[in-house]
């Protein structure tokens, strides 16, 4: 599955509603499903656009170039460390989209887009086995279970901590440059407006 990552625009709000309004998608996310586009537009404008690293996941090679999900790296108390988050519309589940997006995000943030970054971590609910498989396939290492770490929608949850560090990234680059057959996809991070998003 080939994906590209690009910056969001306000015109992406309708495409975002596809996953932002879906209760199954929202189940393990911090937010409740959106019921209208107004608050989603506010979220896009106030949180996504000014965010230090937030990207739309778009599929290549198909008719529809609108985003099918999002991937982000949130700052933490230490500049060496960022927290990964991602969401994919249910219609695209089971096709490796999230894994490809996470791999692309890791390549981008360690490839110079986030200065001083040494560690990308992902905290995944112990019951969210699908998401655990995504980061494992993307090469993250499982470090342990953080008990009662997070208050989520009325319950205290145990989370699994995963990490991908800068030396993992260098090792992977070195592996793929030695073996052309396993070259990583080139993940382009386009900054120009997507000319195909003209449905506004």
């Amino acid at each position, binding site marked *: 599955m080939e994906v590209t990552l690009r910056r969001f625009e306000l015109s992406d709000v309708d495409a975002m509603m596809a996953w932002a309004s879906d209760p199954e998608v929202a189940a393990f996310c911090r937010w409740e499903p959106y019921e209208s586009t107004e608050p989603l537009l506010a979220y896009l404008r106030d949180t996504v656009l000014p965010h230090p690293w937030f990207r739309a996941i778009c599929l290549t090679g198909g008719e529809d170039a609108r985003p099918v999900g999002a991937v982000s790296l949130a700052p933490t108390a230490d500049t*060496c460390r960022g927290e990964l988050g991602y969401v994919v519309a249910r219609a695209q589940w089971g096709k490796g989209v999230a894994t490809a997006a996470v791999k692309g995000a890791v390549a981008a943030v360690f490839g110079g887009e986030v200065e001083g970054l040494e560690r990308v971590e992902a905290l995944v609910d112990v019951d969210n086995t699908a998401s655990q498989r995504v980061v494992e396939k993307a090469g993250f290492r499982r470090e342990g279970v*953080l008990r*009662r770490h997070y208050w989520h929608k009325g319950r205290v949850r145990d989370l699994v*901590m995963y990490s991908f560090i800068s030396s993992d990234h260098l090792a992977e680059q070195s592996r793929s440059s030695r073996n052309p057959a396993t070259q990583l996809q080139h993940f382009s991070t386009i900054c120009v407006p997507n000319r195909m998003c003209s449905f506004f």
Partner: protein
Amino acid sequence: MPRTFGCPAPEMEVEAAEVTLREFTEADTEAFFAWASDPRVVRFQRRDAYSHVDEARRYIVDKVLPHPWYRAICVAGADRPVGSISVKPADDLPLPEPEPGAPRCCRASVGYRVAHAYWGRGVATRAVRAAAEAVFAEWPWLARLEAIADVENRASQRVLEKAGFAREGVLRRYVVLKGTLRDMVMFSRVRDDREGKPPEAHGPSDGV
């Protein structure tokens, strides 16, 4: 000498004096400076050793006195503190609001420092236990008390294990300490954990 449960800890047999925790005042500046200026004590802290007592005074006034939970560690009834222990609620979420359903914070982290002359006597272990009991009692929203220790800081890892914390894993390249990236061991004690029993043993079927 109070009965201890779990693994025997020989160093606790030596001068096992009572440890008490109290709030700091500016009058504790000299005592604070004694350990805050010691490179052995600050080795695994972000801060460099203080070189002037005024740095300690400023720290007490600016950081300690307004802190949500910062205590002086006193030993054997003496008023002069021999260390400090602090508990910080997680700052990525606001402290819990009274109304139900609002976002809540369920965790806090503990850190501690003891003057070198008092190492090896179980002072830190008893301070951590006392702090854990206090904050779980004072903060009903608290579900998890965590601590991180440098992978090379074996003494601190032992303190946490003896204080009933569970080792959860090594977090690679977690912080920058004095200019170098460090791997840290994550420990936690959750509200359900009881002194003396291995944390993993607890489950719904336990009659505890």
